[in-house]
């Protein structure tokens, strides 16, 4: 026996190992099925460790960094088409939701739209009908499902154990040196020994797993299919068991398969009906269940379902791909009709195949003739043995007939033949996509509507409206939506939701379609109100997935619907509907339910939900319920933020016991929820967390791994709420654990530790000395390693944490520790060091840095700058700029060296390097000036000037920017090269169409025109003026604005006449954009050079009998009076005759523009004594009040408003009075409109001006107070 013992021990050990592996699959420690292979996924999905991650707009950040040297409105940058993503055909393809979903999100297809439920409110005290699903039924089914799952797990475990045992036996026999032959026998034998039931059950378990992996709409029988209209009416629900396939039906289901429909042959495992035996107490499935239900005769089917009231929930169907005739290799055109709906994939495949065939067909003689030259080629006779194919069938196969010639030719019309054109929908219905047939196919059957029953007619009507909403044009959609809303109660909740909800489960749904359908639900909900109660769960099944959608707007929509739903249905119904899902076996369901509950809480108020939450969180029955309950609290905190504060204590009390829960997942989620609560309530509410401090701080000593990470996270969020003394104490308590975990190899743990360190360090009570002595050494040892720079999130977190520490301990400590690393050999690491230094010195300045450190720093920075190979994010550049700028004058000794580097790099082969060098000059120009290095700058100016021939536009733009920076700091007179040389060199560059070049160039030119125009001959400026006209067309507003300003400067410098002549000529061009900019430029010139220099020429130009020119002049006048404001009083009499003429012109635009000129004029001269001219102009404006063109009438109304300001409300009221009671309604309407805007603008002023009305027999209309006299 003694010899056997070690052997047994060994096998036992092995078995233990195996069991552990097994446990990882089946036990609660870590469930691959639930959490996927990456167990940290769950973390991030619930709360991101980095809050910024979720909100940050990646595009915005990247662009902002990349384009640091020139700026543009972010909205514009955001709008930039993402080149690579574009399909090239000019517009974005509609996005299918399913394409961007990950596996976890696709699990929504595992959910079934459950049947309606009992509405306890509507029924009152009546006992519910046996056929109606009540809360009790649903709960029972859930319990069954759980039980089933448990049993399956147990079976799997048992089987493994059996195998273990078997192996053990084997080993024993091997040890006993049995012949191999015999051992095989034993194998067989043992196989037989194994309970045959177990084997079968194991097989069935795999069947059950099957539906999980394949998406598809669950209930094949709840999905209304076109062929079964009648069946889908609610009245038939009672008879659902009759819907099991009869032989006749088989055809039917073949013809109209539902999405994820059951194809005959697929094993319909896990149908709930086969769970019925369990309900009667049998725990294990009977062997009978292994038979496919399709094999059974309908008779047995009927008898096999002895279930009475409870109808099954969530029938898992093995969701096979939405079937068409996928196995038919060559779809025939006729196949696309009602009977064989194609999936879009097939549809595309077919189109594609046809396309390819057409391109690959043999060339005809004519084509060959056209291709080859007439000479040098000879047409050979076909070989004698060649016989062309005669049999038509073979011919069809061998040479596919082209459908069209490669060039366009008018296709011959073949009547009666349908190619792959889908059957057109009758009666003005919108186009139907192939995948829509299964939902809307019935609409294509042109039945006589009168023959249908009212119910069917209603269904049809709903379908029509939904189709219009889904696929229709915007006007169709709008009216359909309105009809659906208006008639919602008439249609009834049942028929509506039975139509809408399956559509939302459609696998090929696109974003836009989902948005529209969700909108329908929202509107309908509002109307139906309490009628929705039986459908709450159905709706939730469809809407809950929206809550975890990656699209922000989808999440918002989902929240809105659930919030409205809970307001319509009431708390009790919501809880009754969602309670069974709380301990659902599927983690996905629990997750979405928790989120939905948080929305309910925010809609109906947290206090209403508290008792329920309390009960759930203390559930003894299952850890899942507790987990979900606590998760609801977490989601509430995330959703409503600081609004948790009033309920903080009760929420914490509800979940606090979870910290000591026996289940590890519950402990984890509790800690995460506490973290979320603390984050939401910051900086208040520490007293509510008193009760959890002890378990948290005790917990970090006893836990490891994931739980510890969660606990640390909670602590990290709670510490910042504390008072200084406590924060210091508790930080010290947690710090040794943190320091221990510094070494953790787990990435997630690292991130959390870094975050917690950051939070601890930034709290008030933590002393710099403590950080310096206790934290820094370990911190730098463990985190400032090259590996950390490789992962982006680690990188960012580490930089943030270090910067936070620097805020406490000062620049010198931190920079001193890492400055050497600027010369590290790993470039990402150097970059990380540089970014940290940049942030630290930008925050805290450089006064702490002593001479030695300064030397090291500059040395390191120069090294890092020179050694960089790529700097997409401009980290090195920014770092360099920040350090130089903070050091200020101290950098003087190093400037020659820096400039040497810059000069050398300006001459580099790589465009990036040159660009960066030029950018660096613009960063440090100010400091160079401070250091008095003007000569050096002049030198750099000359160097840059020499590089103006640069061919890369990005680099050229940077060089121009650098020149601009130098010119700005050293001034026009000292600039080398002298301005008179520089500017002519810039003139040709103005022609460059690259935006960066344009912007920098126009800025530089504008600056020179502003400050140093006298250095350049007028002729050169005129030349520039011509170039500038082109730039008025630039896409970027900034460039156009700079151009217009530059016109002003130039006009000031060389006198307005020449510039004006150029501009006025430009009014004749056709392009509207150009003309508009020209008018603005004219106005600017008028403003800078006084109006009297411009007005004569401008008014003279009005005589040109050309519409564009006259309008341009008027527009210039309008801008001009807008800009010059009260200066206008001197010119108003001069331009009045011109405006008179314009206001009487036949052309609408004349009057419109003139009216807006009058408006600006009136507003400018209000109170300056020009009333006579204004009244005169008002007389010309007034007849235009009956215009109907929107722009004209707006301009006229605004002119009248302007007059109200300038002339006073009373004057305008007198114009008004004549029409207020005009016999013609059209006239009255206009006059009342004017009266109303007058009234809104100056109500009080009207009191004195109202007409005196005479009293009538019973009514007093006069206002005697106004004639009182003292």
């Amino acid at each position, binding site marked *: 026996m003694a010899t056997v013992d070690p052997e047994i021990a060994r096998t036992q050990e092995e078995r233990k190992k195996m069991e552990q592996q097994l446990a990882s699959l089946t036990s609660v420690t870590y469930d691959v099925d639930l959490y996927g292979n990456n167990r940290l996924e769950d973390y991030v999905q619930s709360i991101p460790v980095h809050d910024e991650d979720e909100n940050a707009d990646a595009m915005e950040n990247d662009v902002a960094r990349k384009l640091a040297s020139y700026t543009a409105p972010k909205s514009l940058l955001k709008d930039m088409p993402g080149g690579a993503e574009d399909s090239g055909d000019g517009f974005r393809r509609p996005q299918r939701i399913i394409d961007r979903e990950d596996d976890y999100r696709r699990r929504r297809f595992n959910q079934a739209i459950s049947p309606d439920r009992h509405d306890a409110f509507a029924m009152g005290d009546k006992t519910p009908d046996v056929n109606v699903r009540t809360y009790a039924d649903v709960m029972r089914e859930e319990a069954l499902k759980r039980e089933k799952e448990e049993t399956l797990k147990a079976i799997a475990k048992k089987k493994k154990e059996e195998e273990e045992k078997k192996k053990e036996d084997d080993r024993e026999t091997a040890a006993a040196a049995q012949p191999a032959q015999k051992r095989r026998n034993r194998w067989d034998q043992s196989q037989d020994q194994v309970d045959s039931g177990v084997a079968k059950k194991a097989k069935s378990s795999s069947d059950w797993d099957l539906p999980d992996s394949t998406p598809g709409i669950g209930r094949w029988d709840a999905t209304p299919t076109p062929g079964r209209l009648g069946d889908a009416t609610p009245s038939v629900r009672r008879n659902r068991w009759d819907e099991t396939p009869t032989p006749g039906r088989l055809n039917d289901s073949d013809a109209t398969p539902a999405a994820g429909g059951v194809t005959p042959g697929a094993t319909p495992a896990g149908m709930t009906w086969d769970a019925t035996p369990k309900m009667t107490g049998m725990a294990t499935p009977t062997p009978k269940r292994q038979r496919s239900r399709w094999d059974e005769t309908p008779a047995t089917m009927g008898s096999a379902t002895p279930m009475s009231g409870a109808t099954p929930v969530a029938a898992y169907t093995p969701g096979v791909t939405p079937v068409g005739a996928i196995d038919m290799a060559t779809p025939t055109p006729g196949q696309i009709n009602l009977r064989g709906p194609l999936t879009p994939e097939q549809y595309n495949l077919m189109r594609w195949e046809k396309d390819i065939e057409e391109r690959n067909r043999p060339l005809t003689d004519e084509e060959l003739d056209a291709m080859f030259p007439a000479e040098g080629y000879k047409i050979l006779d076909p070989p004698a043995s060649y016989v062309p194919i005669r049999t038509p069938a073979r011919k069809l196969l061998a040479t596919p007939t082209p459908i069209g010639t490669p060039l366009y030719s008018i296709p011959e019309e073949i009547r009666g033949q349908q190619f792959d054109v889908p059957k057109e929908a009758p009666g003005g219905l919108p186009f139907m996509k192939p995948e829509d047939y299964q939902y809307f196919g019935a609409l294509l059957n042109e039945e006589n509507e009168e023959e249908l029953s009212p119910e069917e007619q209603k269904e049809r009507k709903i379908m029509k409206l939904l189709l219009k909403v889904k696929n229709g044009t915007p006007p169709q959609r709008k009216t359909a939506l309105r009809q659906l809303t208006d008639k919602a109660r008439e249609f009834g909740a049942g028929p509506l939701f039975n139509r809408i909800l399956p559509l939302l489960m459609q696998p090929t749904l696109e974003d836009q379609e989902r948005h529209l359908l969700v909108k329908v639900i929202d509107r309908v909900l509002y109307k139906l109100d309490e009628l929705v109660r039986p459908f709450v769960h159905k709706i939730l099944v469809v809407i809950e997935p929206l809550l975890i959608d990656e699209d922000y707007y989808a999440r918002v929509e989902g929240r809105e619907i659930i919030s409205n739903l809970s307001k319509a249905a009431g708390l009790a119904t919501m809880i009754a509907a969602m309670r069974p899902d709380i301990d659902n076996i599927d983690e996905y369901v629990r997750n979405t339910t928790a989120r939905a509950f948080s929305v309910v809480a925010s809609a109906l108020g947290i206090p209403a939900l508290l008792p329920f939450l309390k009960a759930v969180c203390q559930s003894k029955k299952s850890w899942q319920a507790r987990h979900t309950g606590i998760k609801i609290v977490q989601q509430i905190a995330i959703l409503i933020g600081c609004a948790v504060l009033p309920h903080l204590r009760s929420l914490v009390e509800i979940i606090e016991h979870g910290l000591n829960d026996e289940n590890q997942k519950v402990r984890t989620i509790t800690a995460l929820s506490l973290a979320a609560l603390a984050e939401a309530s910051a900086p208040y509410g520490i007293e509510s967390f008193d009760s959890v401090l002890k378990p948290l701080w005790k917990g970090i000593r006893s836990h490891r791994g994931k739980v510890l990470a969660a606990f640390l996270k909670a602590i990290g969020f709670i510490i910042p709420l504390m008072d200084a003394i406590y924060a210091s104490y508790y930080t010290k308590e947690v710090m040794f654990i943190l320091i221990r975990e510094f070494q953790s190899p787990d990435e997630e743990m690292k991130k959390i530790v870094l975050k917690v360190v950051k939070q601890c360090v930034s709290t008030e009570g933590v002393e710099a000395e403590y950080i310096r002595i206790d934290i820094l050494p370990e911190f730098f040892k463990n985190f400032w390693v090259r590996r950390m720079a490789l992962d982006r999130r680690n990188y960012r977190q580490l930089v943030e944490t270090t910067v936070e520490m620097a805020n406490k301990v000062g620049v010198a400590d931190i920079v001193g520790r890492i400055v050497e690393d600027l010369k590290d050999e790993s470039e990402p690491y150097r970059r990380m060091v540089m970014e940290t230094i940049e942030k630290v010195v930008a925050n805290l300045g450089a006064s702490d840095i002593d001479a030695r450190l300064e030397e090291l720093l500059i040395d390191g920075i120069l090294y890092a700058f020179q050694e960089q190979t790529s700097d997409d994010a401009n980290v090195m550049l920014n770092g360099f700029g920040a350090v130089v700028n903070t050091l200020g004058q101290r950098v003087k000794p190093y400037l020659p060296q820096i400039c040497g580097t810059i000069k050398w790099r300006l001459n580099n082969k790589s465009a990036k390097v040159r660009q960066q060098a030029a950018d660096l000059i613009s960063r440090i120009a100010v400091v160079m000036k401070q250091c008095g290095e003007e000569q050096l700058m002049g030198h750099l100016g000359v160097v840059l000037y020499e590089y103006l021939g640069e061919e890369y536009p990005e680099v050229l733009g940077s060089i121009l920017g650098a020149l601009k920076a130098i010119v700005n700091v050293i001034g026009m007179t000292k600039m080398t090269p002298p301005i008179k040389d520089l500017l002519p060199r810039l003139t040709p560059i103005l022609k460059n169409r690259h935006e960066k070049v344009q912007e920098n160039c126009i800025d530089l030119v504008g600056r020179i025109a502003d400050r140093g125009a006298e250095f350049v001959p007028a002729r050169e400026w005129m030349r520039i003026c011509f170039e500038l006209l082109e730039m008025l067309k630039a896409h970027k507003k900034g460039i156009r604005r700079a151009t217009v300003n530059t016109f002003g400067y130039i006009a000031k410098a060389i006198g307005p006449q020449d510039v004006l002549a150029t501009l006025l000529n430009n009014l004749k061009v056709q392009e509207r954009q150009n003309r508009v900019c020209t008018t603005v430029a004219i106005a600017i010139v008028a403003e800078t050079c006084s109006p009297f220099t411009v007005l004569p020429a401008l008014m003279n130009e009005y005589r040109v009998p050309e519409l564009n020119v006259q309008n341009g002049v008027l527009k210039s006048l309008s801008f001009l009076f807008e800009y010059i404001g009260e200066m206008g009083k001197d010119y108003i009499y001069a331009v009045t005759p011109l405006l008179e003429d314009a206001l009487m012109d036949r052309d609408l635009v004349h009057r419109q523009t003139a009216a807006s000129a009058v408006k600006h004029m009136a507003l400018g001269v209000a109170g300056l004594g020009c009333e006579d001219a204004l009244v005169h102009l008002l007389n010309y404006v007034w007849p235009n009040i009956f215009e109907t063109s929107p722009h004209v009438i*707006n301009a006229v109304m605004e002119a009248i408003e302007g007059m109200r300001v300038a002339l006073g409300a009373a004057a305008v009221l007198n114009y008004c009075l004549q029409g*207020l009671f005009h016999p013609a309604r059209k006239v009255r309407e206009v006059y009342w409109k004017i009266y109303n805007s007058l*009234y809104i603008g100056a109500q009080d002023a009207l009191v004195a001006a109202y007409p005196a*009305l005479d009293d009538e027999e019973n009514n*007093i209309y006069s206002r005697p107070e106004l004639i009182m*006299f003292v």
Partner: protein
Amino acid sequence: MQASDRFNINSQLEHLQAKYVGTGHADLNRFEWAVNIQRDSYASYIGHYPMLAYFAVAENESIGREHYNFMQKMLLPCGLPPEREDD
């Protein structure tokens, strides 16, 4: 509603009427307009203290009394509405 109205404040006439009680419309009759005028006037008298003082002197009443009277007159300032002819 005209196409042009979509762009300006009159686009929401109902809203406008609710926000500014005194605004009118094409179907306003003499009585309704007069009521608006009267109420606006009284509100204006009350709002401008010097006016109130002036009336007080003219009528030999206290300012408070004048204030009260004007407030009272704002209820049915023109008496009962006349019988509608068309209804």
